[in-house]
């Protein structure tokens, strides 16, 4: 389990996260949503071990502060919001960088499977820098999957942390990526995803936390959290949660008349 216990983060004398408590279970996609500046990415960075924080974060029962980077890397992999790459590595080399041993038939197989999973097997020998932004994002996802691909008896469950994983993808690839995350969760892994798309979130997340101004507003099952009241309060505009019967699902739309009249005032 991932347990974030009362963590606070301050940067340049500004409180970004204020005593946030957050839980996530393996086997589920846990989504974190909230408006811009609510602290979602800061929470992700704290959980990834990138920035100092007050409080306690436990992953699989270990305080992440006590783990060495290589120990943490065997438990979780992180897909950052934006990825950079220096030098002209090929697609398969980028995926390979995430692997610990890196050379040999076994890693070749993992890279093959990870690239197949994101639908980029035919791109394995292409230069990474020549790909589109969306394709690069999928290569990075393959790298993340490859890092935690091989099951390890001593490390269960393994986690993937995804910071806005579908931000630069078209609708078909958004669904593809979310299906990959769902498959990963169903295979027993844990998935934490920072999301902006409320409809995708309601479709795929098993558990949702809403952040607002550096604090957790609420956390729970989609039907409990994705309500007109919580969403309108978090995003400071009038949002309506509707339901579709075939298949049964929620979709969220802004109530434009009310939003316009509020902005006019």
């Amino acid at each position, binding site marked *: 389990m991932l347990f974030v216990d009362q963590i606070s983060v301050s940067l340049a004398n500004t409180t970004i996260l204020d005593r946030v408590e957050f839980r996530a279970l393996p086997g589920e996609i846990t989504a974190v949503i909230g408006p811009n500046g609510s602290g979602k990415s800061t929470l992700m960075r704290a959980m990834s071990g990138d920035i100092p924080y007050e409080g306690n974060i436990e992953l699989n029962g270990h305080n992440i502060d006590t783990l060495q980077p290589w120990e943490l890397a065997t438990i979780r992999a992180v897909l950052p919001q934006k990825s950079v790459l*220096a*030098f002209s590595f090929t697609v398969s080399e980028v995926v390979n960088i995430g692997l610990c041993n890196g050379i040999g038939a076994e890693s070749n197989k993992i890279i093959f499977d990870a690239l197949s*999973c994101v639908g980029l097997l035919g791109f394995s020998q292409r230069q990474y820098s020549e790909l589109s932004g969306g394709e690069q994002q999928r290569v990075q996802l393959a790298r993340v999957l490859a890092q935690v*691909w091989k099951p390890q008896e001593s490390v269960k469950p393994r986690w993937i942390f995804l910071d806005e994983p579908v931000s630069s993808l078209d609708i078909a690839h958004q669904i593809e990526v979310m299906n990959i995350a769902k498959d990963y969760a169903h295979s027993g892994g844990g998935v934490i995803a920072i999301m902006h798309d409320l409809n995708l979130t309601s479709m795929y997340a098993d558990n949702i936390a809403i952040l607002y101004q550096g604090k957790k507003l609420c956390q729970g099952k989609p039907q409990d959290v994705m309500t007109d009241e919580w969403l309108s309060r978090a995003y400071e505009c009038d949002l309506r949660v509707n339901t579709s019967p075939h298949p049964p699902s929620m979709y969220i739309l802004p109530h434009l008349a009310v939003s316009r009249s509020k902005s006019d005032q």
Partner: protein
Amino acid sequence: MDSLSGYFQNTGVDDRVTSGRRAHKILLVALLLACLLSITIGPVDVSLWLVLQKLATGQSLTNLEHIIFLDIRLPRLITGICVGSALAVSGAVMQGLFRNPLADPGLVGVSAGAGVGAIIAIVMGGFLPVFINNFFGDYLIILSAFLGGWVSAIVLYRIATHNGQTSVATMLLAGIAIGAFAGAISGVLIYIADDKQLRDLTFWGLGSLASATWGKVMGAGPLILISIAIASTLGRGLNGLALGEATAAHIGISTQRLKNIAVCTVAAATGAAVAISGGIGFIGIVVPHLLRKTIGPDHRTLILNSGFLGAIILILSDMISRVITAPSELPIGIVTAVLGAPVFLWILLSKRNASVW
């Protein structure tokens, strides 16, 4: 998720690693050939074959053969191998550390810092207590050059890197400032130096292997060898750093430890090289570039190959510097600049439209 594929095929991920390892062998053979060529050719015509025959059969060498081969050419050759490999490996490691192909110790002030360290030891060494001079001997200049290079590298990294991201413009400008500052300190030291020290100092500006001795080889060689051995273990870490500092940490690399080791390695190798050869440019920037174009950017093979190719280019440059104006000698820094600058420009032009190097 264990296996989504019903069949398996090669992704080509190991192709460039394999070619990189093949390049180890090819470059090693090329280095041996370059060594043979370098030790054979010189202003004085002495047969290498004859010398080897005498050494094999236990005959004593003539005085001339002893001086030419064992006292002049052999230490000079080994110095060339050490300095060439040290500069090229330092270039490859720095470029990986800064995630930028322009981060060469010569270009960003690390060599200048090491030079100041060496000059301080030459000029101010006389003011130190005798027992310190006796204790350190030739190592004093090397140690001082290492400290100078280390301080420059640390200052450069601190200035150019913010929140884990290195600004290229800041790095180059900081390198210019560090180089200028080092130049000012060197200027003051040269101003107060006596005639003998001035002659020694002139050597720094030009860069040369002419003053190579067994003492210098024994002083700098082990430090350079250890630095290269350590640098060759940094490959996976530097590959990870290519994805940014945060991602490198996410894949299990202790980035702070990696940076500390990389900076110390570069400072030690560059400091030792500058201490025994002065300022020799372009090796550190051109060699890794040429290799990236042929075997790819994977640091696991790039670093060692840089060492081999750097050694080859430097000993061939030294050979040219010895014979092109024989019996006098052209400073090797001129030869490496004449060979390296056009290659560097060619690389720049060929990469003008590329988004990454």
